[in-house]
């Protein structure tokens, strides 16, 4: 009985800490603290956003393009993500100068796996839904909604992001560019 309660509590605490991590990350991006954001990315991060295709039911396995070999919106590591931040910081990256107003909403957070176990988790796989809103200059709007599959690894008392797969729920991207982090 007590052991069961313990296990339940460990799961809750883990879920809470993962959610707090994701919310804090969203705040960093919305508040344009890009350097703080880079600091919570594992050096070996893979940041991947596949393309989504309309495929017949018997080939639905090919709906999303594959990491490491196909075209994608993003398929990169920390070096390029850092360069993207540096580009914004130049002040002449016209796609984000003047800088856009961006709001990240994160919801439906589910822990899919915890290794070795919830209480002493070193690696967790987390699925969530996101909504990213951008207002640019006066009336330009972009709304991106989709799913994220994240792998977090323990880093001292906190977490670092080691892998992120972003599934944008759009076939033809309804945005002129992707200059926000998802």
């Amino acid at each position, binding site marked *: 009985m007590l052991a069961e309660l313990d296990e339940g509590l460990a799961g809750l605490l883990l879920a809470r800490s993962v959610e707090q991590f994701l919310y804090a990350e969203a705040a960093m991006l919305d508040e344009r603290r890009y350097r703080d954001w880079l600091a919570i990315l594992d050096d070996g991060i893979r940041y991947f956003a596949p393309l989504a295709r309309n*495929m*017949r039911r018997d080939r639905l396995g090919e709906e999303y393009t594959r990491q490491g070999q196909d075209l994608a919106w993003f398929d*990169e590591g920390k070096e390029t993500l850092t360069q993207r931040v540096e580009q914004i910081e130049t002040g002449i*990256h016209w796609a984000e100068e003047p800088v856009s107003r961006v709001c990240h909403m994160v919801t439906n957070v589910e822990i899919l796996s915890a290794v070795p176990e919830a209480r002493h988790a070193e690696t967790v796989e987390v699925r969530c839904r996101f909504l990213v809103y951008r207002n640019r200059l006066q009336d330009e709007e972009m709304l991106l909604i989709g799913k994220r599959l994240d792998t977090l690894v323990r880093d001292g008392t906190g977490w670092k992001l080691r892998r992120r797969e972003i599934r944008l729920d759009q076939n*033809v991207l309804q945005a002129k*560019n992707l200059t926000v982090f998802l």
Partner: protein
Amino acid sequence: MAGNADSLDVDALVDRAGGTVARGIFVDQAVFEAEQERIFTRAWLFVGHESLIPKPDDFFVSRMGTESVVLTRDRGGQVHVLLNSCTHRGMKVCRYDQGNTRVFTCPYHGWSFATDGKLAATPGALVGVPHFDRAYHGELKRDDWGLVRAPRVALYKGTVWASWDPDAVELTDYLGDMRLYLDFALDGRDGSPGGSVVVEGVQKWRVNANWKFAPENFIGDMYHDISHRSVDLVGIGPSGGRGRRDNLRPRTTICFPGLGHGLIGEPPHTSEPPYVPAWKKYPEVEEYFRQVHERRVALLGERPRVTMSVGTIFPNMSFHGRQPRTIAVAHPISPTEMEMWRFCLIDADAPAAVNDAARHYFLRYSGPAGMTESDDLENWSYATEASRGPIARRQRYNYQMGMGHARPVPGLRGAVENGEVTEENARAYYSRWSDFMRGDPWTPPAAEYVPMPEPARETEDAG
């Protein structure tokens, strides 16, 4: 529609002598509709690549202008381009992006159309009509109701092109000597003919800009280099350091005024310049390209060859021949919206590490998330936006840079060059745009060509 086009004063829209263009052609609905009628139903349009449909019965859905078309390969290996609209009541017969099928069955009333030469004599033929006997009393003339098929389809080194005009000149005549530059993009890096394929997946995205901004930019606008200063400061080239590319040999702009195509690149030359390392960050890739260079030197010998960075084939296909090596198509959606498509080209026989490095360079450079292209998209969309108002529309865009300074290019038929920074290429583009918009008949290409001398050995490195 035709009335629309006839009422336009095309020569007022594009003032060739004065080097200006009316803003209306970037924002007006009437101009847009006339473009659909006069350009997109006639010109040769890029519709895809054979590597998208390698097997019999494979299909890939593409666009020609504002219309959806299906690119298919029949059982005999023949490639066809069919209008994706049921002949009964217009429903889209194919709503997948790609796949494999022998028959397209319309979801609405169930008419089915075969792509397979064994099932039907003509591609796209109507082969199945529910209640044919009971409701049509067997009287429907099925032979007359196949899917509309592009009468002209041409394959060129893997690329697939189509035109709705049965009288269109041959694709090779349409391309003229621009073909040499297309070859550079489509040939193997060692100079062997063809052999390139597209990477799985096509980036497709909507941009609030007139569609012509993309081909006009890619035809040879080196003047806008300054807009990419932020990415140059960061440095994303495959050799590291500042800049978004590696050091290039001197380039010039070359265009084909009678054809409306143009590029940034080198004039034809007959010997291969020394190898310049371009992949210093990737030793394995660097070594591969060093070997490829040696093969290229041996293979091409003293034959004329060209190189190019970026170019446009009128009206809306652009391509990048160096890395990142891609094809970009600007599909018109409305006067103020386009849908851009980007394909990544690789050598089918290159090692995975080489193609992966090329793909990654593409993703950080081009497309909506490209650190270079994202800024172009911002410029094109707000240039469109700020040209819409009545006062703005009374003004004209200025294309006067370098007027009167063009000179012929030895070794190319009907081509001129005008230095690295000029608007010569854009002028050639809008000149061809006017030809189409006036509804000029196809002229035999020979009549439009200015004969050029063969390249002289002494001048081959000029420019």
